[in-house]
């Protein structure tokens, strides 16, 4: 028996739609939010969404619909056909890709994650206990367990299905109102999920952050831990979107083939990573995803494209649709060769920063931005932490930041949380000459 998305596709093509992609998302998610060492609420959602792309003579429509029953489907299809016909042709139209595609097989999905529900509370309890044992007074955070099935059918003959499951914990420990530490544990398997470790690390950073002092504004060499470096790198990879490039909302616009970063820096989008938090087999156009090098040894190699942006750029799709805006799936920064335990020694004198938040741009095309440094931030001399610091911000330029990367450590951390929404795998990094500012009035 045909499923809803297949029925919708048939109805659309029967009524004159020339091209269509219909995707059904069936998503279940449970979560526990907590603060002051106890749950504040436990939540659960069970959601089904039908997404439709349709085109007739280069007239294009994109829609998303919920509570779709058989009766309702008639009305939706009528509306979609009418809207598509009434839309003017767009010069940005690109035909849906056709061909014989080879899709990766053997993706492993941990289905046990789907059934966790109230067991999430015991994982939360573990993380809170670990922070307390590390000396923190209290903890806050959220733990998600997510499961989704995506089913895609297209007028080009595709019929695809992919399943996803992940468990992610974002944990923040407080040793005082000013002394905080944050850590995450994110995994596509229960074996790879370690709430105790996240709680312990957050607790240790919080305790080390006690009694922070103000420092002078200026240029500092900085050692970035995984959370803050993931924040920077997810921004960098996001700016490779062909859509942002074409509307000049990226510092990478017009720079293919140019050196834009340190020789130490190689970033790729790698949805083919087995067990990756952003592992993906096909994109929103049904094209197989691929590993795409964005920056190779500091040189900008590729933008991320869907069919539309590729056509405009005279390039090929990289399997990163979004119908309108392509985007990375699973960002990976190539690790360096310095042992992580030697990174502070390599830094010598400067700042060790563990997290950042609230990055905003004055100009996307130049990359001028600032971001708040939060949680553990430390002044370092002779490779050793001297004291924690507070009230600072990085006020710099994103291309300058990536050009000044001097060392990368040899280990990758998977990061995904409120501030880093695209899964990002990063080492830790030493960045020279970072501009640090602080507020007037402290």
């Amino acid at each position, binding site marked *: 028996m045909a499923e809803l998305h297949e029925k919708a596709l048939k109805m659309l093509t029967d009524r004159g739609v020339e091209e269509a992609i219909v995707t059904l998302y069936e998503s279940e998610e449970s979560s526990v939010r907590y603060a002051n060492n106890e749950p504040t609420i436990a939540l659960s959602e069970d959601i089904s969404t039908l997404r439709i792309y349709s085109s007739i003579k280069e007239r294009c429509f994109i829609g998303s619909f919920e*509570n779709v029953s058989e009766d309702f489907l008639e009305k939706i299809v009528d509306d979609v056909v009418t809207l598509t016909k009434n839309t003017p042709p767009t010069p940005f139209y690109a035909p849906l890709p056709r061909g014989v595609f080879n899709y990766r097989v053997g993706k492993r999905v941990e289905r046990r994650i789907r059934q966790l529900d109230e067991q999430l509370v015991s994982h939360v309890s573990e993380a809170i206990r670990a922070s307390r044992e590390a000396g923190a007074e209290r903890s806050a955070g959220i733990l998600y367990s997510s499961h989704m099935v995506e089913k895609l059918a297209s007028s080009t003959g595709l019929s695809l299905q992919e399943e996803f499951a992940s468990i992610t914990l974002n944990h923040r420990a407080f040793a005082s109102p000013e002394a905080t530490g944050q850590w995450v544990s994110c995994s596509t398997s229960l074996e790879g999920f370690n709430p105790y470790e996240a709680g312990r690390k957050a607790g240790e950073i919080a305790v080390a952050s006690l009694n922070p002092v103000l420092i002078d504004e200026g240029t500092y060499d900085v050692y970035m831990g995984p959370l803050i470096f993931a924040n920077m790198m997810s921004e960098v990879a996001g700016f490779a979107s062909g859509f942002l490039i074409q509307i000049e909302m990226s510092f990478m616009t017009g720079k293919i083939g140019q050196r834009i970063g340190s020789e130490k820096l190689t970033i790729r989008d790698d949805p083919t990573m087995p067990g990756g938090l952003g592992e993906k087999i096909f994109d929103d156009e049904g094209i197989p995803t691929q590993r795409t090098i964005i920056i190779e040894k500091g040189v900008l190699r590729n933008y991320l494209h869907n069919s539309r942006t590729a056509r405009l750029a005279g390039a090929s799709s990289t399997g990163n649709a979004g119908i309108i805006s392509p985007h990375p799936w699973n960002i990976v920064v190539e690790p360096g060769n310095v042992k992580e335990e030697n990174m502070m020694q390599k830094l010598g004198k400067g700042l060790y920063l563990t997290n950042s938040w609230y990055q905003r741009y004055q100009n996307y095309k130049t990359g001028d931005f600032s971001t708040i440094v939060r949680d553990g931030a430390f002044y370092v001399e002779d490779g050793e932490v001297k004291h924690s610091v507070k009230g600072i911000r990085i006020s710099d330029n994103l291309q300058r930041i990536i050009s000044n990367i001097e060392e990368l450590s040899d280990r990758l951390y998977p990061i995904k949380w409120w501030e880093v929404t695209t899964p990002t795998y990063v080492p830790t990094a030493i960045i020279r000459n970072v501009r640090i500012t602080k507020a007037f009035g402290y």
Partner: protein
Amino acid sequence: MEDIVELSRKILDYAVAAGASYAEARFHSDSDSGVALKNGEVEAVEASYEVGIGVRVLVNGGLGFASTNMLKPENLTRVVDKAVKMARASSYLKSSRICFSKDEAYSVDWRVSEKKRLEDWSLNDKIDFLKNLDKAVISQGVNVSSRYMGYSERRTRRVYANTEDALVSALVPRPSFFALITVADPSKGVIQRTLQFGGSGGMEIVESWRLEEKLGSEVKTLHKMLTESVRTPEGVMDVVVGSEVAGIISHEASGHPGEADRIFGREGAQAGESYLKAEDLGRKIGSEAVNVVDDPTIPGSYGFYLFDDEGVKARRKFLIKEGRISEFLMNRETAAKLGVKSNGSARASRYSVESIVRMSNTFILPGDHSLEELLSGVAKGVYVKSFMEWNIDDKRWNQRYVGLEAYMIEDGRITRPVRNPVIEITTEKLFSSVDAVGKDLDFVAATCGKGDPMQGMPVYMGGPSFRMRNIMVKGVG
């Protein structure tokens, strides 16, 4: 409507039978449609329909929430079972029971009317409207190297019911517009601007934005700032900010820290906590010239509502009164902790998320100065009319605003344009430096982000121009 009310009653009865001491059901649908132009050509026409139910329950003092968009009867009992199960689970580790403030239960249906109905505006009309705006942008004799703009509408319907006999239904249409504009010059580089407009109502709201005139003027200003601005002289000086900057200050430095859930630590791992503590009502935070309110009842505003998502009647709240912290933004949970009634600040962005404490229309109250009077008292300073980059720390104490349209003030008059003046300042220093407030109240629409999962919420931010004495101004770079 009657079906939904009946269904709500059944859901609530079922929840109580399943062990809930309190339950609420919120049906929530959002119908969206929009069109975007890239460099003057239609990029895409989009539409979406989100509809579902969220059920929140209290069991053994623990809160549980469950949602679904599959509205078959068997799913509705399952969603209640799930909410109860989650509430029970969340109660296991609790040291104290969650309870809600005692608030009046209303039975009411409120709607925002459209003087000119949005549905009478055809897709082609909307495309023509955007194309005219695009023409206004590119016909100023300025090199606009890129522009992306979009118009969209959202029609939100809600039916809220709880076991304390509240029954509130609502209908709000919200038109909105955004633009991303890049102006280039061969020798000076590029300058960029993001703009957002929004309101509640019909076409009359869109017309009130006077977009053609504003966009044209904006492009000319961007060109002037790009080609004529000089480096901002650094140092301690007087600063006059325009309404747009006053708005973001009121939102970030008064609104967010005044959210009681942040004060109690409930957003601790994400958007953070607050410089304020529960005992800080009455604390002096600024000069007597500073008055900040949050008011959801402003007709036509983007953050408009008359009853919140806990069924509590909305009203104006004084966040800062004559320089002192006056009231927090509260939902029923935080109000109970403070031993008072809710002031109607609970909102949920969609059916699948819990309601949390949110701002609506937050603004600095106007004073009695004209802009000329504010400037006339300044021997040397900076006038910052608009901004691009900004951020603030998670206690809402350490903030930064980087000017976009900005000028030197010399001997009481606006003189040369200056490039990207930076105000990086603590909240107390900022509000304490205010010595005069203008009467030119205005608002900008914005989408405020908070919560985990993230909830984007329509708000106004606003205020009049105001003057700060002797604060540090820096330049970029």
